[in-house]
């Protein structure tokens, strides 16, 4: 530690830190634009010039290392003159269009000019102008003329998103921020550049010109999408959500959010919002009062339960529902005697049920990811499934950690991959067994269960990498959790982690993947799980936030079950395909219109309040379930607040006690790959994961939301006589769809990648399994 003096205040700061760091510590504000605590030092805006004793000229605080005994003055004559001068230069080419600028009122340039600039400019000549370029649906560069070349956006791309899409072309007065030849910005973290931009050069395309900053009220909320639980500020005006920005939480989302968290709010205002309870009578939908709708539901459920038996009633919820909703739904179901409740809709292997020691979770804190030195990431479309967890892993890799991948698709993860084994889904278990065997050999441990496994080169390399680390983590992604042998994968992963004595965890698929377990929204011993409820159709279904054809592991089966049911109660914020098969539509409030809790993948329970009033007659689902509970005479449905529900559901002070990744499943002998035919590999595209993003208009225009194609190895496509871009017939079960074919040599042999969760593939069957791809012959494509 060294001591320096800033404006007469003595500060102790770390050796190697800068004057800016020390000033922040001392609470002295030094104006700046290009400096950002999460980005590298550029020192190109010159706004942070300060006087340092004995230095002949002002020095940039952000790039000047603090030295023992240094005396810094931020308000001396020299400093003030320098700041005024820099400010005047920065404003030379900056259009003074603040009254119509989207950034007006929250603009660093405006604030700093106010605080440190002169009253008038001496510059009277022509200002430069920059031609705007289209960089996609999310970011507008329409007013790039406002840019002050701080390069924060460029550095964000290089250092955080790890995808350098924006750059500064040309030089001096002609320097311009642009993409390469008008390409779009496709990073899944791109929206953060809008926040980073200190001026109004990069603005949010969906939000532009919809409100002035001072008209908005900000309410804190929590992301309902991925398992991270990013902290959000929901900005509202006239009871409408107009934008979403991050709230800094160093332990969770740092100061970033993914584009999904940022732009999904557009779905809230979609025209598809369901605003009135509806009942289908004689095949026609009729808007009714809540009382009538709820009585109809209660009578319906009672009839089925009394007639065919309570086990004919099934409830499915998405893990994007709040803890309170999930808890009350399961309480309601159990109250009427049914144990059929599940939220793990895309899971296909439930053999670990009843053998889990606790709720599966990340196995460590989110912040802990940065300190890992080895990773084994099994079955994860990491970047798209967990944009910010992927960012943390990338940061660790940059610090020297080794990332090892076992997956069925070789996606570009934007980081250095130490070793990877890209195998067909059917070979995943065997590959993990090889890694276990190799590790056991390396550590001279016993190899029970995998004695006879022959270790391949890839597995050996991964084992070696893991054994060489001290703080490794074995992480299972969504693909591994949805895999038909998920339990075996988990057992092997746990054993691998145990052998190295390292952390083992699950990358939670959705906002409440942990919360669902804690809420008890899983079947008990006599209940049916999500797959069983659909494979042996029930007479009545209660759907909470679910679009079965997009949210379930096997949409074909799910739809058949819905069509055949006597009663389908869809609790949904949107009018979706349920109008075809449901009998009642109950309009419930999305996350901004209800209070609730999400328990993120590290077991952190985050409660939030409603930001706006529910739209139309929509009501928070926990209240709807409360009334249903009362109508059905189930005891204990007299909650006053959602907090009361939460406190009954979980002990928020001791959630970690309920989390445990251990599963008591025996390791099965690994059989050779006995699969035949083409195997489907299904990802859920980043903007197809839940009801809300599917209706976020701008996100749907991005490249990540493009209609899925069927991807196969180039040589295998050739064998079929198909070229990249041709339309092919993709068949699974009793349905086929037509999709464009594309070559992807990063896939293993014998595999076709066809995304799930998208309308174009919703008629197909299970996310895992055999699939056929045929060229279209004899008829026009």
């Amino acid at each position, binding site marked *: 530690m060294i001591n320096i003096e800033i404006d007469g205040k003595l500060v102790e700061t770390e050796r190697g830190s800068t004057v800016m760091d020390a000033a922040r510590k001392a609470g002295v504000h030094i104006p700046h634009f290009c400096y950002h605590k999460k980005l590298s030092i550029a020192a190109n805006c010159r706004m942070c010039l300060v006087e340092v004793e004995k230095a002949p000229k002002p020095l940039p605080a952000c790039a000047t290392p603090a030295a023992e005994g240094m005396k810094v003055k931020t308000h001396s004559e020299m400093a003030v003159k320098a700041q005024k001068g820099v400010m005047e230069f920065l404003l030379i080419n900056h259009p003074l269009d603040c009254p119509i600028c989207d950034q007006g009122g929250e603009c660093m340039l405006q604030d700093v000019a106010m605080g440190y600039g002169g009253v008038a400019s001496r510059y009277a000549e022509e200002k430069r102008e920059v031609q705007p370029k289209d960089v996609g649906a999310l970011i507008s560069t329409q007013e790039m003329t406002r840019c002050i070349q701080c390069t924060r956006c460029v550095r964000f791309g290089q250092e955080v998103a790890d995808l350098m899409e924006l750059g500064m072309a*040309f030089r001096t007065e002609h320097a311009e921020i642009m993409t390469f030849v008008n390409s779009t910005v496709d990073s899944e973290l791109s929206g953060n550049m809008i926040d980073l931009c200190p001026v109004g050069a990069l603005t949010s395309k969906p939000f532009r010109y919809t409100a002035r900053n001072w008209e908005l009220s900000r309410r804190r909320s929590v992301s309902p999408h991925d398992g991270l639980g990013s902290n959000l500020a929901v900005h509202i005006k006239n009871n409408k959500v107009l934008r979403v920005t991050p709230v800094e939480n160093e332990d969770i989302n740092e100061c970033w959010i993914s584009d999904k968290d940022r732009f999904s709010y557009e779905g809230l205002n979609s025209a598809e919002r369901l605003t009135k309870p509806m009942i289908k009578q004689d095949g026609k939908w009729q808007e009714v009062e809540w009382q009538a709708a709820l009585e109809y539901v209660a009578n319906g459920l009672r009839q089925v339960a009394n007639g065919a038996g309570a086990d004919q009633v099934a409830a499915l919820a998405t893990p994007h529902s709040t803890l309170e909703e999930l808890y009350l739904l399961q309480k309601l179901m159990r109250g009427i005697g049914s144990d059929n409740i599940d939220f793990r809709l895309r899971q296909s292997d439930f053999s670990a049920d009843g053998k889990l020691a606790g709720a599966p979770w990340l196995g460590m804190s989110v912040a802990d990811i940065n300190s890992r030195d080895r990773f084994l990431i099994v079955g994860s479309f990491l970047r798209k499934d967990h944009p910010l967890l992927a960012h943390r892993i990338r940061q660790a890799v940059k610090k020297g950690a080794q990332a090892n991948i076992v997956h069925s698709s070789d996606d570009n993860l934007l980081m250095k991959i130490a070793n990877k084994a890209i195998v067909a889904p059917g070979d995943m278990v065997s590959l993990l067994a090889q890694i276990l065997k190799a590790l056991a050999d390396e550590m001279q441990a016993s190899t029970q269960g995998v004695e006879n496994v022959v270790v391949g080169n890839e597995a050996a390399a991964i084992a070696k990498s893991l054994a060489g680390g001290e703080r490794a983590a074995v992480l299972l992604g969504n693909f591994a959790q949805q895999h038909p042998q998920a339990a075996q994968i988990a057992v092997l992963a746990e054993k691998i982690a145990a052998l190295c004595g390292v952390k083992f965890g699950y990358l939670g698929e959705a906002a409440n993947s942990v919360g669902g377990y804690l809420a008890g929204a899983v079947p008990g011993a006599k209940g049916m799980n999500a797959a069983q409820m659909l494979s042996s159709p029930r007479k009545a279904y209660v759907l909470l936030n679910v679009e079965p054809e997009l949210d379930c592991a096997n949409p074909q089966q799910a739809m058949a079950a819905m069509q055949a049911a006597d009663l389908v109660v869809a609790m949904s914020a949107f009018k979706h395909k349920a109008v075809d098969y449901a009998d009642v539509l109950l309009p419930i409030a999305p996350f901004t219109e209800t209070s609730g809790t999400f328990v993120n993948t590290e077991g952190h329970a985050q409660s939030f309040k409603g930001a706006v009033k529910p739209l139309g007659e929509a009501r928070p689902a926990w209240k709807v379930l409360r009334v249903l509970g009362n109508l059905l005479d189930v005891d204990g449905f007299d909650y006053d607040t959602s907090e009361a529900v939460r406190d009954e559901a979980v002990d928020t002070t001791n959630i970690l006690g309920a989390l445990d990744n251990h599963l008591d499943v025996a390791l099965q002998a690994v059989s050779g790959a006995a699969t035949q035919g083409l195997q489907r590999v299904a990802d859920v595209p980043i903007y197809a994961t839940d009801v809300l993003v599917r209706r976020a208009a701008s996100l749907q225009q991005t490249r990540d939301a493009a209609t899925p194609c069927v991807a196969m190895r180039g040589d295998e496509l050739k064998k079929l006589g198909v070229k990249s871009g041709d339309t092919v017939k993709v068949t699974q079960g009793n349905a086929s769809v037509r999709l464009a074919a594309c070559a992807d040599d990063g896939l293993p042999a014998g595999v076709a990648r066809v995304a799930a969760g998208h309308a174009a593939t919703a008629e197909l069957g299970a996310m895992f399994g055999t699939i056929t791809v045929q060229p279209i012959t004899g008829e026009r494509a």
Partner: protein
Amino acid sequence: MLSEQIQAQVDRELKKYPADQKQSAVMAALRFVQDEKGWISNDDMADVADYLGMPKMAVCEVATFYHMYNLKPMGKHTITVCTNLSCTLCGALDTVAYIESKLGIKMGEVTADGKYGLREGECMGACKDAPVLTLNNKKICARMSKEKIDKVFAELDKS
């Protein structure tokens, strides 16, 4: 795809740098492209980026930053006239005017037959010989009087 010849040149250049810092060769690679094609197209930048494993925009930044990279075709012979202070004091503007009238083109243009391109340049570090021009960024021609310019063009016309 970069031509085999360029690839070989770049490969030789890459030996000068650590294996994980291939982008160090970007300026050389762009120069090789320009030597072969006379200018650097967007596709060339993308090819260089792929070859060196860099983001395309990073190559674009370099190519647009340095004045001596031609971002559009500049003719078979690119004549770059220095118009910085020393050269201008010694008559660089007359040099420019004479070449413009001789070729019938303006600064930044290319003759219709694609033989000559005229560019404005920055200081070439030979002020004592002002006014100065370069041929294809390789050869410096000093003290450019009208006679000397005629002589230079007479030789170029032959090639």
